[in-house]
């Protein structure tokens, strides 16, 4: 029953009813308003707090692949990747590695193919190849976006030596002045380029020499395993190219590593010994697990192939290993983590490699151990390395616990195995 507007507004009963109605309406409105806003806010805030929590847990948003990640500083020049700066970890002193980066320039070319770019080559690009001075990905076809060099061959095992021949020719022709050494690897090879520089710094690029995992059959001076990677000096590369131009070398077989070995021997290139100062291998044709823990069956071909005696177990492999082969993508990143990132704080390694003959700081050419060099540096400017502190020595002699920490209560000093 709707009261007429001009006759009823002053009517108390109607007013109260209206008031009652309006109160009801008000409360209803209040309820509706608060509910709607509550639901609305919950949605918005829920999403906000979820994303906040999510961001808090996860790491910073993944950055674009080729620019702005602090450690990736390379320039794409056509089909080549030029590393501008040697990657560094925060808090590390990499000046020796930097010196070697400048003095021992390495061009790495990676044997790959169109079907392997995303499944394998991509991970090489993201990991160890960043430590090379120049990187070339060699494929049968050119791909400017990766980038890869197009060699104009087919794909497959029978094309391996063709690809190798063309790849080396391409490298010398287009980048011969940008490097001193030329490394070949597969897209499932993991290489520690810094350790390669340590070995190569004992030689010059003008020597006709090449290094890798040395095999003995078929070639008198031996040849280097293709999968484990091998590296040629510039002179060796020149002679290889010359061999083809003079027809001394031809495409004899598709077994790429053997064919390389035969050509290089003909051209007077020496097969070098890549082992460390304790005669431990640095280039490895299998994954670390196989070398460290596997027992190779006595009938396995490997026994008859290795130029140097095989050592099974932990001494198979140098601390300064250069390469491993058959490395899948997960292992690729794992090895990158083990090599460059994960470390035991303050641990004094058993093996103290001698500074290479091409001495960096002092130019005296006198090889010293890392420990001796550290001592020199400590004398120069008091580096807070506790064990080198003279007071620590004093404490030691009074019989209290030494600050040189041992883990089995009685330690032993570093075995000074460096060659005099």
């Amino acid at each position, binding site marked *: 029953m709707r009261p007429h507007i001009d006759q009823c507004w002053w009517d108390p009963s109607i007013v109260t009813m209206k008031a009652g109605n309006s109160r009801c*309406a008000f409360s209803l409105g209040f309820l509706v308003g608060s509910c709607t806003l509550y639901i609305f806010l919950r949605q918005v805030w829920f999403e906000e707090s979820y994303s906040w929590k999510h961001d808090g847990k996860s790491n910073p948003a993944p950055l674009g692949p080729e620019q702005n990640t602090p*450690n990736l500083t390379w320039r794409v020049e056509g089909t080549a990747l030029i590393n501008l700066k040697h990657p560094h970890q925060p808090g590390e002193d*990499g000046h*020796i590695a930097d010196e070697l980066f400048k003095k021992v320039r390495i061009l790495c070319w990676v044997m790959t193919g169109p079907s392997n770019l995303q499944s394998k080559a991509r991970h090489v690009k993201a990991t160890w190849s960043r430590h090379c001075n120049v990187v070339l990905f060699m494929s049968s076809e050119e791909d400017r976006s990766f980038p890869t060099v197009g060699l104009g061959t087919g794909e497959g095992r029978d094309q391996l030596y063709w690809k190798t021949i063309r790849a080396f020719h391409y490298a010398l022709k287009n980048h011969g002045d940008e490097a001193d050494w030329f490394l070949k690897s597969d897209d499932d090879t993991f290489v520690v380029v810094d350790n390669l520089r340590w070995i190569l710094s004992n030689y010059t690029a003008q020597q006709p020499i090449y290094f890798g995992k040395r095999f003995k059959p078929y070639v008198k001076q031996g040849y280097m395993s293709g999968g484990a990677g091998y590296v040629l000096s510039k002179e060796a590369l020149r002679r290889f190219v010359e061999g083809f131009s003079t027809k001394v070398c031809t495409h004899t077989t598709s077994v790429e590593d053997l064919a390389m070995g035969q050509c290089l021997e003909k051209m007077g290139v020496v097969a070098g010994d890549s082992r460390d100062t304790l005669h431990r291998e640095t280039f490895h044709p299998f994954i670390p697990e196989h070398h460290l823990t596997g027992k190779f069956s006595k009938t396995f071909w490997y026994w008859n192939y290795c130029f140097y005696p095989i050592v099974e177990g932990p001494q198979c492999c140098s601390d300064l290993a250069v390469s491993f082969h058959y490395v899948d993508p997960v292992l690729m990143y794992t090895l990158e983590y*083990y090599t460059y*990132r994960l470390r035991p*704080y303050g641990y004094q390694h058993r093996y103290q490699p001698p500074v290479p003959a091409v001495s960096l700081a002092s130019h005296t050419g006198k090889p010293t151990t890392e420990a001796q060099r550290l001592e020199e540096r400590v004398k120069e400017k008091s580096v807070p390395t*506790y064990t080198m502190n003279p007071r620590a020595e004093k404490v030691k002699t009074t019989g209290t616990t030494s600050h040189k920490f*041992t883990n089995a209560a009685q330690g032993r000093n570093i075995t000074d195995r460096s060659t005099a």
Partner: protein
Amino acid sequence: MMYEGSSFMKGMILGGIFCLVVSFFETFNSGTHSEGHEHLHHHLKPVSKDELEKLSESQMSDWTLQVRVYCLIMVTPKLLVHWATANDTWSKHCDKSVFYTSESSKVLEAVDLQEQDEWARLRKAIRHAYENAGDLRWFFVARPTTFAIIENLKYLVLDKDPSQPFYIGHTEKSGELDYVEYDSGIVLSYETMRRLIEIFKDVDRCPERGNALWKTPEETQLATCLKYSGVFAENGEDAQGKGLFNKKSVSSLISDSMGQNPADVVEACCSDMAITFGGMSQSQIQVLMYGVYRLRPYGHDFHDSLTFLPPKDSDND
């Protein structure tokens, strides 16, 4: 009708404002509340490099003397392969490592606790370790399926006073209780051990034999007993906030990172100063030993403020 309409509108607006006010008030409260809660759930980080360099000789001397670790490795004959692996690898880096077993094995040495119940065994081991600690002040409890880098553990606790109660590892929640996950290793200070020995006597709050019907895992039982002693779990992480204690294997963590962070896999994955990894096979552990203690790139130095020597009679590190 008009009046009702406008009242309704007024009501709606007022309702909205009311709701807004209440929500702000709530979040403000819960914001501070959760912060407060965060403080209880500590994030424990190692001392920074700058701090270390500022130290005096005597302070450095004190710290190096303090930071010695007693490893309690809880084994069973079922885990013989991992037991042997732990024996051959990371446990050599502890200042003292003792294997505590449920029953003896002819092949490997251990303290035979002759106890099948895991919680009771852990209690006995803790008691034994406390009594045989000598001058060791830090205790690391792990199963042999965990791999530990003791040097990094020492780095984490370097500036922490072991006469204070510390209970560190990877923390998880069970209801309201924060506990340290067993699989990624548990770090206890000397004071914590002392308090544990005390609370073990309290049969009501820290019983030795739990309810036979439902078994609470030892890690939560430990956390409960510690809670009654006023000791709370702290999450061990590095300066960037990355967890140092992992119950997954390295390859598992790398695989995860490849899926989540394909542009920066290694950076996003794991800490450089990681302390533990779990779930690794015997050969994966040998590779990890090589990767941690030997494999490195020439020419990169870190100039750490302390030096830890390699253990005697070992060739895989």
